[in-house]
């Protein structure tokens, strides 16, 4: 069994993932009412539990731990990238000519569902990239990149996705996952059909 593939969850993990869902929903409920009061928290908790009983969420395996400094770094970089991306796409909109693009396959090193989802979310929001397809068996994201100039630019974008994954794992990954992403990226990757 590879350590990356989540196996069945233990009872404790399932409980924890439900607890996080309840806390999240209570938070949303409080924000919707616009005030953190005991009444809101209690009614929110009742509704959250009822919701999770009626619409159970798929279990999410979270094997990592939060590293606050890395989380802040991740978000800082994310919002920086988001800003740059927005102005790049805005610039492309007003430029003459049709922007070239490419669909790249990026194989993530950490293949858990949570990691794939979060990387896909972040990638979709940062410079010129959109998820066209995701393969959860091989942990590969197929990313449509906008405004790709040439092959070198393409490889740089591919490396950026892997760096983003590394930042994410540094923020919330487990130690084993961290070792996976800290390993140097092989520069001579296997040949892909062009």
């Amino acid at each position, binding site marked *: 069994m590879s350590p990356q593939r989540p196996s069945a969850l233990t009872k404790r993990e399932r409980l924890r993932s439900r607890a996080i869902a309840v806390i999240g929903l209570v938070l949303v409920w*409080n924000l919707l009412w616009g005030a953190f009061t005991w009444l809101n928290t209690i009614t929110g908790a009742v509704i959250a539990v009822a919701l999770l009983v009626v619409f159970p969420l798929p279990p999410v395996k979270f094997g990592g731990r939060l590293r606050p400094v890395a989380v802040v770094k991740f978000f800082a970089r994310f919002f920086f990238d988001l800003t740059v991306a927005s102005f790049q796409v805005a610039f492309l909109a007003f430029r003459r000519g049709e922007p070239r693009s490419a669909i790249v396959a990026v194989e993530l090193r950490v293949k858990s569902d949570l990691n794939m989802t979060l990387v896909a979310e972040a990638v979709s929001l940062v410079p010129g990239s959109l998820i066209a397809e995701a393969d959860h068996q091989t942990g590969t994201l197929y990313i449509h990149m906008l405004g790709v100039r040439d092959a070198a630019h393409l490889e740089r974008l591919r490396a950026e996705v892997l760096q983003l994954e590394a930042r994410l794992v540094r923020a919330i990954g487990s130690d084993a996952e961290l070792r996976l992403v800290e390993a140097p990226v092989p520069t001579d990757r296997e040949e892909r059909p062009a």
Partner: protein
Amino acid sequence: MTLQGVLDAVAAVLMVTGALLSLAAGVALLRFPDLLSRMHAAAKPQVLGLLLMLTGCAIRIATVVDITTMVLIAVFQLATAPVAAHMVGRAAYRDGQTRTDLLLTDELAPHLDRFSDKPDDKPSRFPATPPE
């Protein structure tokens, strides 16, 4: 300049920038060549545009009740926009709505058969053989 004046100026800059980004997104939607490119426009400048708008509003309005709602709008926008873009983009790609002449490379095409039928998943809602 008073503090209120500074805040007003910051809010104004944020709102105008947000509006311009949303305008750019609209222009991009019209001008980009194919659906996948257009989804970029829908997913990005508009998200930041909205975030800037919300920040600008939050500075001007500055009441807790409204700000909590705006936080929720921002969170759900960030969480859902990429998913929506992905679903549309994916459907478009499978349907052959991509301008392949504009693609530098397409590393998905050789693997596409992997996605037509997945035995490990729930029974697919899509037919196993892709329509020609």
